[in-house]
């Protein structure tokens, strides 16, 4: 295991790190200076982070009701919920992205529905908009938040909300003081997965976001594939890694809070 992770993970990462400090005359910080020197790059970085946050919020808003539905369901319905949330994961990311291109396009169902309801005057395309990309990302990443949630809820005692009810709590109080705290470890795990997945989903970002919405993975591809500037590409990759890594680390630290350990 250790050998595998050294060969396939630590070594490439080390190379990447080395590359990012490489200059024509030896070790330099020029690559990082170049990246941060351009306000456009910085905006791309914040856009990437924002997309991650928005997707996390979107998947959470959808994931919690689905989690609650799972919680209140019987054994059979629970299996259906798990199966339905797994189905998207059985299709390739590329296929799902192209399906979303159809759905979001000018002739797609969303545009036609808005037109039919008289909400828009002319067919509109959600392609190449951040909102369209967000819709696709939320759908694609939804299983990543549902699965950890379901795993937590499946082994949580039904007695807890009952105890709250007998103690005098209403439905909303039970949701806020019992069910959501019970779900929190699952949500934290889901947030880590969704954020990591979104900020690195090159295909979806490129195909649906289009040229108007650029995210860090595309920047890297351009440096490597078009400009052949490996050192700068490595530097950008390191910046992305560190900024998302810091966030994920923070989430992981929160999930080790003593109140969240050893639930259920």
């Amino acid at each position, binding site marked *: 295991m250790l050998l595998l992770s050294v060969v396939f993970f630590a070594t490439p990462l080390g190379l990447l790190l080395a590359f990012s400090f490489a200059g024509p005359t030896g070790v330099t910080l020029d690559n990082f200076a170049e990246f941060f020197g351009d306000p456009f790059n910085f905006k791309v970085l914040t856009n990437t982070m924002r997309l991650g946050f928005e997707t996390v919020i979107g998947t959470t808003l959808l994931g919690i009701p689905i989690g609650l539905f799972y919680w209140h369901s019987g054994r059979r319905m629970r299996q259906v919920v798990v199966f339905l949330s797994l189905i998207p994961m059985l299709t390739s990311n590329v296929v799902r992205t192209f399906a979303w291109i159809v759905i979001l396009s000018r002739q797609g169902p969303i545009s036609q529905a808005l037109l039919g309801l008289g909400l828009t005057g002319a067919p509109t395309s959600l392609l190449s908009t951040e909102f369209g990309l967000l819709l696709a990302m939320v759908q694609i990443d939804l299983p990543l938040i549902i699965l950890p949630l379901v795993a937590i809820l499946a082994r949580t005692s039904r007695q807890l909300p*009952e105890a709250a009810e*007998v103690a*005098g709590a209403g439905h909303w109080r039970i949701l806020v003081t019992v069910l959501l705290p019970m779900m929190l470890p699952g949500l934290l795990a889901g947030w880590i997965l969704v954020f990591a997945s979104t900020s690195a989903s090159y295909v979806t970002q490129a195909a649906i976001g289009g040229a108007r919405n650029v995210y860090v993975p595309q920047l890297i591809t351009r440096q490597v594939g078009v400009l052949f500037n490996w050192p700068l590409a490595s530097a950008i990759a390191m910046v992305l890694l560190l900024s998302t890594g810091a966030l994920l680390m923070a989430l992981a630290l929160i999930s080790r809070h003593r109140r969240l350990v050893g639930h259920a």
Partner: protein
Amino acid sequence: MATQSGALLVDGLTHSYGGELAIQDVSFDIAPGEIVALLGPSGCGKSTVLRAIAGLIQPAQGQIMLAGKHLGGVAARERGIGMVFQNYALFPHLTVEENVAYPLACQHVPKAARKERVRELLALIQLDGFGRRLPRELSGGQQQRVAVARALAASPALLLLDEPFGALDRALRFDLQVEMLRLQKSVGITTLIVTHDQEEAQSLASRLVLMNKGHVEQIDTPSTVYDRPKTLFVNSFIGQANQLRATVVETKAESAVLKLDASGSSLTLARRLDYAVGVRIVLTCRPEQVSVHAAATATSLPARLIVSVPLGPTLVHDLELADGTQVRASQMRSGAAFVPSLGDQVHVTIDADHCHVFPVHSISPSELNKGAKL
């Protein structure tokens, strides 16, 4: 810590799950401040009764009254009942203080009053200084006491305990039961305990409600239930009971003669028996009412000793009668006149004055097995 304890009245409670009758016509009452135990084997419907009282299920029929108020349309959260769940159901993300304060927060009790009440309760359960701990940082017994404190926090009119000692070590149980009694007495709250453990029920409750297959079989004090069981089920569930098949041979005003299947010998009961001659019956007797002798007497039955187990001050013998019926006898170890050894052919006599007689049709196949195990 004055609590406005109320009387509980359960009348004709009937409920079914998916067409299967879980409880049928369950009725009993608890006087203010009394402890009553709902006792029965698992699956007898006692938990259903408890959940109906707590308001977690709506019974199909029947009435529940607490302190003179009908609980029919009242939601669980408005019933003013405190409940200790089987595995305590403490909120794992809340500290001991927060757990105990939870019912108070639900009632929007001001912060200062809440704090004062929590301090008072933690003192009552002797866990002062544990307020900042999380439930998982406590021992099982401490968790149980926190669950009791939470149930009592909002000064409920009734305390429900669902198998409160089930998850605890046997050694701990007795101490905690004594502690629970002390707590209950000091608060004076009407209490209903649901348990399958007869010792627990007997040591805590002033009256037992015995349930079997969704019915109430008997409601009496622990000693009455033991000494004068109304049904064969109660007889064999509370304590141990040997079961012997017999036929009524003769009935008189003040006595009756039975013929035992096991030996063909007859046994005379010095009391009136309300059975017709020729009726098949089940005769039951406690192990302490069976004595073992070396020599045969006029009323003794021949038996073979299978195993003897010393149990504290007593010695428990498992014996087999001539027809294979198993009989258990217990005798005091000190001062025993005769101690048989394994495989011995011995003679047992049954104390006819303390035997109980039940009609044969009251045995179900599962109870037959239970009888054979004894």
